[in-house]
């Protein structure tokens, strides 16, 4: 079916789209088509609803109004709207980080039964960065002090966030010079909301600069804290084999899907799924066992640390329900389509929401808190088991694909023999030309996974190492690029190195908050070379992004010196000034820019050109 093949490049997706059609399920693609054509003012960033003298819109064709009621022009309106997208993205990641710090604190206080400190070494390492003396203290005590210190990063007293010290000195000097060194994590978001109020910042340049500061408070603040605390609580990821795509569902098992972003819930669900008495109950209910799988980032968190299989990424989240094989989907927060409840209603699937800050139509709400999470998890898993008997017809149309996940910075350095030097040597020698981080979601504007997979293929063919996260990482996993054998598809240099190290040419580095692992890795390389991130032969890409979080991520990448290529166009074309600043002008300020290119082949070319340019500047062989 051509329509379905245009919607997704995945075989499971195409087959399930047919199933959805048979079952008369409305999908995200149907709703997207219903919305077309979309409002041009809104798409260009030219509509403003910041106050009720408005709403206002600017006519891009020059005939109608050129100013809002307050007097704001296209540049101001576009910049304010973009600033608020960054604020929302940064706030989302950072609030997620806050929840983890809260768990860390409760673990320290002995209140969060079920949770524990899994990586004491990392706890000590991170605590040392916060200036906490670990000697003679037990892990709980250190954890308590660390949580307290991290909370201070969320407060308003710091002049600069603690983990910024991981960035190269040159980079920090740039931030100081531009006055965009992030202070409190929440403070930068509040200030962005303040600046974008009517009659506050009406200078599009300073608005965008504050956007960078706000984004940095995410990348080197909220998200980085989220990743570090997740590692401390749930273990630092290690490479491990897993499986991906809808075929990971098992017809004879109780299938439970976790969806969302925060491992606080999903880790407890995992424990419950592994407990002997519940497995026994599953068998008593006629199932061969309990099969836990993930979608979206909470899935990635489990995959990274526990090798849990992934049923799909963003645009698969509805389709996976149409298999009829999902006995329960448990969601926490972020990127969970509010349509899921109504899709599930056509099957026997139970939908459970768990977060105090996220409810959804058609879901049962079971609120998880650190103190009751272990117990709640057992409760819902039990219900899932009981629901197994109510299954109707099951349709699992494909076999799963193998993949390797679990590449934290720590394990990458381990794989290299304890230091990043072999990687640096390979870069210097030109065996590997450079490295690219591919991140972000799916977007119905783009054939599902096509952007991620095509871009990745083109890059590894040309000896560029790819690391990826989030839905991008799931896309390349489904496409079979996360296997040691996939080195065959890489260019000769990259193939040789992957062969020697036994790693795939595309390394799964985790969830969306784990993009900070890429920042840490890039900083380590820059520090080792005594240079700045923007001088490295590296780049970033978000070929199928859709969310405000992705805008924040892109902005902290660029502000950290990483040239970043976006697939979908952000709502900025209403102001060519803003477009030019983001795609050209920022080069003079932070040494990196955005580039927008919907065609992944062209994006690959642009990135190769960028990387070769950086190599030349470093005097590395061409």
């Amino acid at each position, binding site marked *: 079916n051509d329509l379905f093949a245009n919607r997704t490049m995945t075989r499971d997706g195409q087959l399930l789209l047919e199933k959805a059609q048979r079952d008369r399920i409305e999908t995200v693609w149907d709703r997207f088509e219903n919305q077309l054509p979309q409002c*041009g*003012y809104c798409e*260009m960033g030219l509509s403003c609803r910041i106050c009720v003298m408005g709403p206002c819109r600017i*006519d891009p*064709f020059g*005939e109608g109004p050129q100013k809002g009621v307050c007097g704001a022009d296209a540049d101001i309106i576009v910049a304010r709207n973009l600033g608020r997208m960054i604020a929302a993205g940064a706030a989302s990641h950072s609030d997620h980080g806050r929840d983890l710090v809260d768990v860390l604190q409760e673990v320290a206080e002995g209140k969060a039964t079920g949770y524990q400190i899994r990586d004491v070494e990392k706890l000590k390492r991170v605590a040392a960065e916060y200036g906490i003396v670990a000697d003679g203290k037990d892990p709980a005590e250190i954890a308590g002090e660390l949580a307290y210190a991290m909370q201070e990063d969320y407060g308003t007293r710091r002049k600069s966030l603690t983990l910024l010290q991981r960035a190269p000195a040159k980079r920090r000097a740039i931030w100081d010079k531009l006055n965009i060194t992030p202070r409190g994590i929440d403070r930068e978001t509040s200030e962005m909301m303040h600046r974008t109020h009517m009659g506050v910042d009406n200078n599009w340049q300073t608005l965008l600069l504050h956007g960078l500061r706000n984004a940095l408070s995410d990348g080197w603040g909220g998200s980085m804290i989220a990743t570090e605390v997740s590692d401390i609580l749930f273990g630092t990821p290690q490479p491990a084999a897993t499986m991906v795509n809808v075929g990971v569902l098992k017809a004879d098992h109780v299938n439970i899907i976790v969806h969302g972003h925060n491992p606080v819930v999903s880790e407890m669900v995992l424990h419950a799924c592994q407990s002997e008495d519940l497995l026994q109950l599953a068998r008593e209910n006629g199932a061969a066992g309990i099969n836990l799988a993930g979608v979206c980032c909470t899935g990635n968190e489990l995959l990274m640390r526990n090798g849990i299989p992934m049923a799909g990424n963003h645009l698969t989240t509805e389709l996976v329900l149409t298999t009829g094989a999902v006995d329960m989907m448990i969601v926490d927060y972020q990127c969970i389509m509010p349509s899921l409840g109504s899709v599930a209603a056509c099957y026997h699937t139970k939908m459970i929401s768990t977060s105090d800050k996220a409810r959804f139509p058609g879901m049962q709400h079971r609120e998880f808190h650190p103190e009751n999470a272990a117990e709640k998890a057992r409760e819902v898993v039990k219900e899932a088991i009981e629901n197994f008997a109510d299954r109707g017809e099951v349709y699992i149309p494909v076999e799963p694909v193998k993949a390797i996940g679990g590449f934290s910075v720590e394990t990458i350095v381990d794989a290299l023999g304890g230091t990043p030097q072999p990687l640096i040597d390979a870069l210097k020698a030109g065996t590997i030309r450079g490295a690219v981080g591919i991140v972000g979601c799916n977007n119905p504007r783009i054939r599902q996974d096509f952007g991620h997979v095509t871009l990745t293929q083109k890059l590894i063919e040309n000896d560029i190492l790819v690391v990826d996260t989030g839905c991008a990482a799931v896309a390349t996993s489904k496409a079979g690029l996360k296997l040691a054998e996939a080195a065959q598809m890489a260019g000769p240099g990259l193939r040789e190195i992957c062969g020697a190290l036994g790693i795939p040419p595309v390394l799964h580095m985790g969830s969306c908050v784990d993009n900070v692992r890429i920042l840490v890795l890039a900083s380590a390389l820059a520090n080792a070379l005594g240079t700045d991130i923007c001088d490295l032969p590296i780049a970033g890409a978000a070929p199928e992004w859709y969310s405000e979080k992705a805008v924040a991520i892109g902005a902290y990448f660029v502000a950290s010196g990483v040239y970043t290529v976006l697939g979908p166009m952000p709502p900025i*074309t209403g102001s*060519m000034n803003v477009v030019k600043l983001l795609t050209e002008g920022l080069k003079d300020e932070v040494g990196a820019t955005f580039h927008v290119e919907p065609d992944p082949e062209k994006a690959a070319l642009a990135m190769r050109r960028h990387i070769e340019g950086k190599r030349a500047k470093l005097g590395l062989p061409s």
Partner: protein
Amino acid sequence: MRKVIVHPQRCVGCMQCMHACATAHSKSKELFAAALESPLPKARIHVGVGLFNEGFPNRCRHCEPAPCQLACLPGAISRDVETDTVLIDPDLCINCASCAMACPFGVIRYHQHCYAPPGKVVAVKCDNCFERQMQGLIPACVEVCKAHALTFEDPSRALKRRTDEVARSVSPGVLQTDLAAGFSVLNAHKRQQIEIALRRSQS
């Protein structure tokens, strides 16, 4: 034959039809690119503002006989029978403004556009998205109007619908129902705001 029908009571004033129209009459047919073209494409449908700040999409009626056509001395205005569209030939137009004076609805504008000879200012108005229709597409303003204030259908169907609507509204024992409760609340609110000002200027 399908025609563009205007249902003013459903106009929410979003002006997206203007946007879509300008884009449909650009070189690139793409919103982002269109906004960078020279000459800038312009809308051929215009949303006016009523007494109570409500919108009204004002569009060429393609009258029969068309006063603009009758007023055009060089014969630049003709009717395409297949789509029942009054069309202006930019090559023949002499920019005399007779058509605009004749048009009872004020829908004719004068400017350059990408189909006219470069640099020539000509009379421009709605062409029922002639080009799109040839490609099997419906007019751009209709496609973008999610409130269905513009529809593309057989006029008899639209009239039938309207007739039924009116008939139902006078059915015995039936309470007058709103088209959309929230929209009525908003419109009543705006109307009241304006009436407060009127009340003052009368007193």
